């Protein structure tokens, strides 16, 4: 029993780290984290400002919901249509574009829906639905899922049936399922590149405007909840669009994938991408 008490003392003294008021909570999507970009940017920000960033990386839907409740101080997400809604409602403010990359439609080599080279993503999805070819959806309200649903809507298709598989998981796991079931899916290019070793589904449709994947940073309305770190959130948002940061984004990924994963676009507006 005495040993036990000694042990407790050791662990309590080695003690938990308590939250500091100089902490900024960043709610963001899995892709910024999984790509490794934040591992590069966050230490730069912490060094510049002396603040500590807590990165909560979840799907865009959850990231925005947390921010709207005042559970985060700044949001970095990629679902423009949903973001604009939050800004209109006054939950978020000062939405600024940070960077983009693009989505691609991948699928099995033998391409049963014959979509290879189809210029419009919407037409490709129509063919997948018509031929009832297997398609894996994220099904998790992530930015990727929101974009995919937008494409189905434009295609006038209500995706439903045995051919439409909802994984409810992150992009990585979803790619694994698509690969295993020899199915089509919509993925961001970065994650697809990162999974080259494990999956053998080639890109079939790309470079269509609706496939642009635009990331923005938004500050949180302090009225959303108690204890929102407004100054910290603004500092991080400013940091994301600062020229030095944008320069880092521009070259990120070249060493690992031979091509950059994101294109910096600070200062541009949605209108530039219509």
């Amino acid at each position, binding site marked *: 029993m005495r040993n036990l008490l000694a042990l407790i003392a050791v662990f309590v003294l080695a003690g938990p780290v308590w*939250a500091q008021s100089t902490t900024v909570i960043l709610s963001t999507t899995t892709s910024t984290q999984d790509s490794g970009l934040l591992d590069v940017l966050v230490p730069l920000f912490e060094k510049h400002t002396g603040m500590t960033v807590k990165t909560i990386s979840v799907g865009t839907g959850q990231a925005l919901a947390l921010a709207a409740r005042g559970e985060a101080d700044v949001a970095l997400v990629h679902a423009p249509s949903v973001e604009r809604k939050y800004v209109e409602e006054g939950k978020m403010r000062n939405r600024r574009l940070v960077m983009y990359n693009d989505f691609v439609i991948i699928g099995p080599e033998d391409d049963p829906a014959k979509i290879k080279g189809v210029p419009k993503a919407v037409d490709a999805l129509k063919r997948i639905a018509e031929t009832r070819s297997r398609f894996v959806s994220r099904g998790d309200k992530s930015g990727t899922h929101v974009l995919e649903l937008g494409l189905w809507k434009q295609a006038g298709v209500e995706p439903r049936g045995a051919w439409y598989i909802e994984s409810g998981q992150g992009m990585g796991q979803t790619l694994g399922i698509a690969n295993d079931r020899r199915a089509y899916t919509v993925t961001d290019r970065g994650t697809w590149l990162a999974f080259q070793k494990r999956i053998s589904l080639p890109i079939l449709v790309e470079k269509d405007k609706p496939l642009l994947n635009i990331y923005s940073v938004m500050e949180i309305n302090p009225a959303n909840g108690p204890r929102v770190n407004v100054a910290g959130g603004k500092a991080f948002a400013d940091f994301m669009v600062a020229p030095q940061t944008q320069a880092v984004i521009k070259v990120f990924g070249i060493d690992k994938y031979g091509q950059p994963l994101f294109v910096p676009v600070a200062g541009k507006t949605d209108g530039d991408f219509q």
Partner: protein
Amino acid sequence: MELIGQGIVQALGLLLSGDAEVWQITWLSLRISATATLVSLLVGVPLGTAMALTRFPGRGFVVSLINTGMGLPPVVVGLFVTIVLWRNGALGMLELLYTPAAMVLAQLVIAAPIVTGLTLAAMQQVPEKFRLQVLALGASRAQMVWTLLKEARLPMLAAVMAGFGAVISEVGASLMVGGNIKGSTRVLTTATVLETSKGNFDAAIALSLILLVLMFLVNWGLTWIQQGRRA
């Protein structure tokens, strides 16, 4: 299979090269789960002992509750602890969410019923006659309880192992209340999930193996305490 081989090689490499991040993650996992287990003993042992030695109306119901708690889904615990710790939540003013302390709290909620339930079972299994005998020999009530605890030492250590095993291996609650923040709340299980989602399966396997080895070493130590003096 080849992948697992690579994982073993990488795990050894990471540990032997003294990879600072892996050691930090491993140490944090141990610290958080050990703290949660030890605190759960402080709660569970007295509670389990009291439940074993008292009789009151509705006791069966309370025991059933404790036994149900032994199987609390970590993800449910994670969700509720998160909501309580939110800035908007009941304990929001403590600003504990996304800290190791929050993870200790969640793991405590998972481990405490296990320790309580197993303590209750261990104490009840000491024969009633033994208790009466100790009292008859002139022991005070406190001395009697102490003697009972010593008698139930073997199953009690099993309770420690079960509690520790449950919390060091759970991922749902740690991910939710900790946020898997690099250098701060990233533990072996959440790091494994992250590496898997990144497609770094060899790193994920390496982390899993480190977790298994850690669990083995802790249980080995506990078993040595449990069996040692008898051998």
